[in-house]
């Protein structure tokens, strides 16, 4: 049996992988290490609505150059629709129109924003003159009361806005605030109160940027104008904090509606986003060569799918880790690739929360599974019962964690429940057959493997390489094939067989 074809395949995979990676490095100037280049955020907005068998007009706010971000390129995908971009004092907007549409409609808008800390906000429009605010009967005294209270404790417009927000939202929320909140929403109400006090303020919408997030929506913020400094300042309406977080992109900054649909119902807009690093020059050039056949890559997919692939492409790294630990080290794990799935969950939950959550669920699950074994059930029914148990445990832990104010506890839902149920089932059988020692060995082996896989998969350099260089997948494949051909000793066998070699010396 010749091994030549095997080494040939490995060699071809290796060479092809390296060649593809080098080609991407050279042609697209993608760096080998992350972080030395500028960050680019790709953001995709998906507008969904149901058209009502007739003409439809969709009007959506678009982001502009602003402090911290510059617009690089933007694209839309909306078959059959007419499209116009408009810009006025309040910002830029896109207007889609169609004569006749029916059923569910999807419009895509994607934009590349370059992170540039030195970018300045455009000249801000001076605020329009204030209109008089009229309150209905029981609310006017409440409004006056809140305004007076905040006014007396402030020195200028900004401090007034802060005090007002603390009274409205935070722990200091009083009876008057609660009365007003029965009639108005928090953010519009705060703006109304500010205007009532003669302070120019408006509601704006921003997107909190987090890598790989999908189906996000906009958050609401309040801009307050100060006449003496002649500029707008941004406030978090919930905490009263002043200033813009670094990862906040203002999507709509003119106090207008984000999305207006005429001729459709049930309209909403979702955002997907991800970041990658590239030289600013290449970022500009990138969209020119976009359509060539050579640029066949997942980077031509819609952003939502790309964010998904960012995770999928990490799985081979986890698999390589498992192969390495089992073949070269000799770890025992319960379920071959269970540790990879646990590691994927750790990426969502962060390591410590994930470890604690995992141990809690498995420990409680084992106790309950121990009782189930007395009932003498058939396997499928028993595992199904364990699945329901796991779901119950996770729900209870989430609620308890939330009540205790541990928001991190909520991420426990990211654990793959079926896998957890099987893990509990296997551990339990192992406990009955081989005793608790073997459970500790295999459980510990699985956890150590999961943690190592997590550390490898969560490494920024690894994430950068796997996502930007698809050729790396071929190299990983070649490495795994090579490991599958390894006939040497495992590390732990050096300990297992140690007594044999040791005895030579003793007589």
């Amino acid at each position, binding site marked *: 049996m010749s091994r030549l074809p095997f080494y040939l395949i490995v060699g071809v995979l290796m060479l092809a992988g390296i060649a593809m990676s080098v080609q991407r490095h050279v042609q697209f100037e993608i760096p080998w290490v992350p972080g030395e280049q500028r960050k680019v955020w790709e953001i995709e907005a998906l507008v969904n609505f149901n058209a009502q068998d007739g003409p439809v007009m969709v009007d959506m706010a678009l982001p502009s150059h602003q402090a911290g971000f510059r617009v690089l390129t933007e694209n839309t995908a909306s078959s059959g629709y007419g499209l116009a971009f408009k810009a006025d004092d309040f910002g830029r907007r896109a207007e889609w129109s169609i004569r006749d549409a029916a059923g569910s409609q999807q419009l895509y808008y994607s934009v590349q924003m370059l992170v540039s800390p030195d970018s300045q906000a455009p000249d801000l429009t001076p605020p329009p003159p204030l209109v008089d605010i009229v309150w209905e009967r029981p609310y006017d005294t409440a409004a006056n009361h809140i305004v007076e209270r905040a006014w007396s404790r402030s020195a200028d417009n900004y401090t007034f806005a802060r005090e007002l927000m603390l009274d409205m939202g935070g722990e200091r929320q009083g009876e008057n605030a609660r009365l007003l909140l029965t009639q108005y929403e928090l953010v519009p109400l705060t703006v109304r109160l500010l205007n009532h006090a003669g302070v120019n303020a408006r509601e704006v919408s921003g997107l909190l940027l987090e890598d790989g997030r999908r189906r996000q929506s906009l958050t609401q913020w309040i801009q307050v104008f100060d006449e003496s400094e002649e500029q707008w300042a941004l406030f978090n309406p919930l905490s009263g904090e002043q200033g813009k977080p670094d990862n906040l992109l203002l999507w709509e900054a003119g106090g207008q509606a984000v999305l207006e649909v005429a001729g459709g119902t049930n309209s909403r807009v979702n955002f997907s986003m991800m970041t990658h690093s590239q030289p600013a020059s290449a970022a500009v050039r990138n969209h020119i060569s976009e359509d060539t056949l050579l640029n066949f890559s997942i980077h031509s997919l819609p952003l939502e799918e790309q964010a998904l692939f960012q995770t999928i492409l990490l799985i081979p790294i986890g698999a390589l880790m498992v192969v390495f630990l089992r073949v070269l080290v000799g770890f025992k794990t319960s379920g071959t690739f269970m540790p990879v799935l646990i590691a994927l969950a750790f990426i969502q939950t962060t390591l410590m929360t994930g470890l604690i959550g995992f141990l809690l669920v498995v420990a409680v699950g084992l106790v309950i599974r121990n009782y189930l074994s007395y009932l003498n059930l058939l396997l*499928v029914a028993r595992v199904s019962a364990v699945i329901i148990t796991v779901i119950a445990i996770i729900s209870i832990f989430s609620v308890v964690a939330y009540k205790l104010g541990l928001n991190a506890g909520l991420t426990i839902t990211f654990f793959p429940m079926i896998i957890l149920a099987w893990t509990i089932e296997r551990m339990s059988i192992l406990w009955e057959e081989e005793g608790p020692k073997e459970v500790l060995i295999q459980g510990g082996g699985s956890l150590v493997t999961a943690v190592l896989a997590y550390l490898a998969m969560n490494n920024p350099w690894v994430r950068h390489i796997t996502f930007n260089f698809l050729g790396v997948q071929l190299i990983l494949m070649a490495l795994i094939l090579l490991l599958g051909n390894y*006939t040497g000793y*495992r590390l732990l066998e*050096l*300990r297992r*067989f140690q007594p044999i*070699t040791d005895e030579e010396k003793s007589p």
Partner: protein
Amino acid sequence: MKWLSWTTPGKLRSKGIIGMNRRNIRYIGRYNNRRLFPLVDDKLKTKLLAQQHGITSPALIGTVTTQFGVKHILDMLTGHAGFVIKPAKGSGGKGILVIEQSKDGAYVKPSGAALNLTDIERHVSNILSGLYSLGGSPDVAMIENLIHFDESLMAYTYEGVPDIRVIIFKGYPVMAMMRLSTAASDGKANLHQGAVGVGLDIATGTALRGVQFDRPCYAHPDTGHDLASLAVPDWKTLLLLAAGCYEMTGLGYLGTDMVLDRRHGPMLLELNARPGLAIQMTNGEGLRPRLDMIEAQPEDQSPAARVAFAQQHFARHSELVFPADMPTSTA
């Protein structure tokens, strides 16, 4: 201390020790056709095959394949004083029920506990529903004659039946060991649970060295009997039976588990297509040199020729007796 002592790959290689990876790729992967695995994973198939090939194994009283058949089990059991009920696809000794004697509707286990017919029926029904089989798949219950264990070896075991594992490579007996159950192993013959493994000389069937928990051991920890005097009777017949399993299954790398019956001599208990590597520990020797030697031998040798070859080339002296105490070689 055990955790701190490590050896080097070089030392292991010079001893000819085979690791898991090498066993999987080089021997199981190359010599064991996956198509043939069901023959050994299903004990009923193994037994029927053994009967066809004239390989002695505990006589089959009957099988129960349907829940309906459970009701007729009494017809099968009458006239048999002792019997063993086991699942055909069970692993690791799970679901094996040994009844030493039955009298007036009471069935007595070796421990002395008595069962009634309903208990037996429930056990068989559990086997059929897959309680003891891998993956919970439906199974078949086999009822076999009780093995009357050879008394000459009784002193070396605690509760359980000691079995003899012979590794058969391309039909040649390569290495053998006996597994003696202890109090620590709870009467089970599993080495990692504390059973004593005794390496056996392929030429004579006498003890080479004893190992418990990977440490040398010179006497049975419970009975206190000296291991050096252990010698398997009828050794050549046992090797011939084991070697014949190669023709029977076609599996090139095979673990055969044998027992010694007082009346019928050596018998095949079950086969294993993925035998473990602990036999190297009990023999204090690696498998590699012997396997290499066998790979160099011509094909199509008769079982008798293969056994003779192995007895000639793999003979060794016991490490349990010091040369001064030993008047003549046990061979």
